[in-house]
């Protein structure tokens, strides 16, 4: 299983690969991933690679990812080349119209890429008083619901609970469930 997780520095994307790693470890599987730290992390585009299984290198090759998780839609579109044919995009959308772009639709169709979009900012504005730092857990919930991540909601819930600092645990679990409900398959 190969994931690519993209977003902007400061959106907390590193937490997602930590959670996926915890899930894999609980199943006694091998994990390997690559993260961005340092200057590249400051507000700009960031990308995490994450692989579960018998791999050697921490990087996902373009055309090989099973799932692309995007915290920001532009970053998601920009990195679609990482997906294999038939792969899945789970994306936080803030400008829905973009999904109607004809070229984008044609590209996704030709490569049989499935899209699960979640309006993360809207949901967090309504339910969490606009505390956008919960975006990462919300998207993890959506990833579980998409069925494409190879991880179950219960596994992820357990990992999120064990990795969350005490003061965020209850809220994290609540938001995880919201993300899960937001995706209908």
């Amino acid at each position: 299983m190969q994931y690519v997780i993209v977003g902007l520095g400061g959106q907390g994307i590193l937490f997602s690969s930590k959670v996926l790693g915890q899930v894999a470890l609980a199943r006694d599987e091998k994990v390997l991933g690559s993260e961005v730290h340092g200057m590249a992390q400051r507000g700009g585009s960031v990308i995490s690679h994450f692989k579960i299984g018998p791999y050697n290198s921490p990087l996902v090759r373009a055309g090989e990812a099973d799932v692309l998780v995007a915290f920001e839609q532009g970053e998601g579109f920009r990195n679609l080349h990482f997906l294999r044919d038939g792969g899945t995009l789970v994306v936080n959308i803030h400008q829905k119209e973009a999904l109607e772009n004809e070229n984008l639709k044609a590209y996704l169709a030709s490569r049989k890429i499935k899209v699960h979009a979640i309006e993360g900012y809207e949901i967090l504005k309504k339910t969490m008083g606009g505390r956008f730092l919960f975006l990462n857990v919300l998207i993890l919930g959506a990833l579980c619901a998409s069925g494409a991540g190879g991880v179950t909601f219960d596994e992820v819930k357990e990992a999120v609970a064990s990795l969350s600092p005490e003061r965020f645990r209850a809220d994290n679990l609540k938001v995880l469930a919201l993300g899960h409900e937001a995706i209908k398959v």
Partner: protein
Amino acid sequence: MSKRQILLGNEAIARGIVEAGCAVATAYPGTPSSEILPAVAAYADELGTKTAVEWGINEKVAFEVAAAASFSGQRACAVMKQVGMNVAADGIMSVAQFNMAGGFLLVVADDPGPHSSQTEQDTRFFSMFAKLPCFDPSSAEEAKRMVFDAYDLSERHQIISVLRPSVRVDHCRQDVELGEVREVPNKAAFKKDPKRWVCLPANVRVSHPQLNAKIDAIAEEFETDFDSYNYEVPARSEAKLAVVAGGVSFAIVMDILKATGRTDVAVLKIGTPFPLPVKKVQDFIARHDNVLFLEETYPVMEMQLPDRTKIKGRWNGFVPRAGELLPEVIEEILYRALGEERPKREEERLKAALQELKVTPKPPALCPGCPHRASFFAIHKALPAAIYPSDIGCYTLGVNQKMVDSVVCMGASVSQGSGFFLAHHVDGKDQPVVSTIGDSTFFHMGVPGLINAVYNRHAFVLAILDNSLTAMTGGQSHPGLGDKLRREDSGVAVDLVPLIRGCGVSHVSVVASYDVAEGTKAIKEAWQFAKENRTPTVVVFRHPCMLLRPKQPRVAVTVDQEKCIGCRYCITNFNCPGLVFSDEKKKAYIDERFCVACGVCRFVCPHGAIVAVDGEEA
């Protein structure tokens, strides 16, 4: 009992350092190495070892502190990023020739790409220059194993061992086996011996040939005794291509071969690139016709071979001579080396969509609320015609505000201020110059430049952007803060202002970064004083870094759409991710996804269009 845990490559290295019985560990932060030292402290706390763990003021100091611990018989290590080795080079080149007493591990992290560095230099090449053995791990797990072997090699040959993880190893996450602390007999017992510990020319005439003999002996060991790092993965059918690969390039090649089901490529992995096990490599080359070398970033392995005629690599440009060897890059090289067409993917529609949707990569930017942004704005307001030399830190990103005219390396903002002054002064011009430098960088290498400027009477303003942190590298401590890494260890904070005065600077002022009016006034006054007295002056801008999540009043703001004339002044000169421009409406607006309500942009708009939301001003 064995225990597996998912660790960052840097944590795996740290765990190895503690398990190997290191007694003194020092570092100066620098991506991609920064997480190693804090992890050393955490494991030392957890496992209850005696290890002293310290940030040095810079890499040279950190290295020299650790080196003397090794002279005393202790196991020691110094950790830095690749350009840190340039700073520490003076010490490293001398100590390379010493017969070390305790094992010494020098961990230097490379950054092919580069992702977060000012150069793409190769530490394996530097090891060759210093004549020091170098280990090049291809995974976190291997990096940890190498720590033990590097220490043993170091003690066997009384030489510094270099471990060179590259960014993909430092920042990979992998499940790694945790072990126990190994008992080592090392203790502090310094034996006075000037022939051994004093680098007089007469002693070097003896020690340099000794160093050569050590490297020859190590080369022999690398030929035969390190098969877990240097090994061949033979082709399972007739080999059409033979690849010699080191570091993470090896791992990438193996994944590509597996994913594509190829059996006609033989691979030789090399984990000890200097001194190269030349016979092993030559034997592999001799058995194949089509040979490719993959290494980051210089052709260091290639260079050690007397005959390169058969080799496709970085030396002859078959492999690009700069840049990171990403999986897609290696894939392309492999197909080219095999003389085959690479499977093509149709990306035209995606390209068109990205263009229509105006999707472009986002370059790094200062965080919303970052005090540096406010300081830059104040400096610009005070002296818009100044030259702005800057330095290495988050504030390098002031380039987005057009407030960074030149950056060289840590500390150079101060010396550049001197140079810009002199160049104009000799022509009889009073050119305003405002240099910017961070607190950590000022301690690191800014101080000598400032003393130099006082001594030689260079008129310019030095703005020290003090955010109480080494932020760019993730938030480490420095001498101005005084806290230390190990539990129950504490240091002393060195006060910035007395230090500046001690350098001989007579005009020093301290302002709050968010107070744009005060900052502007302070810069104007400082330049006036500098010009009149022909001397450097200093303004310290203070506000905690946003990474520290400082408690501060929330001032929610909005852009009055009536008053905004769409001049983009705020975008050009303030450049905040929370304050953006609508191309449709031709007006600025607040992007609430990113705005942290610091309120500073209220002082930016020349038309008064950015205002506090009613009743929300705290």
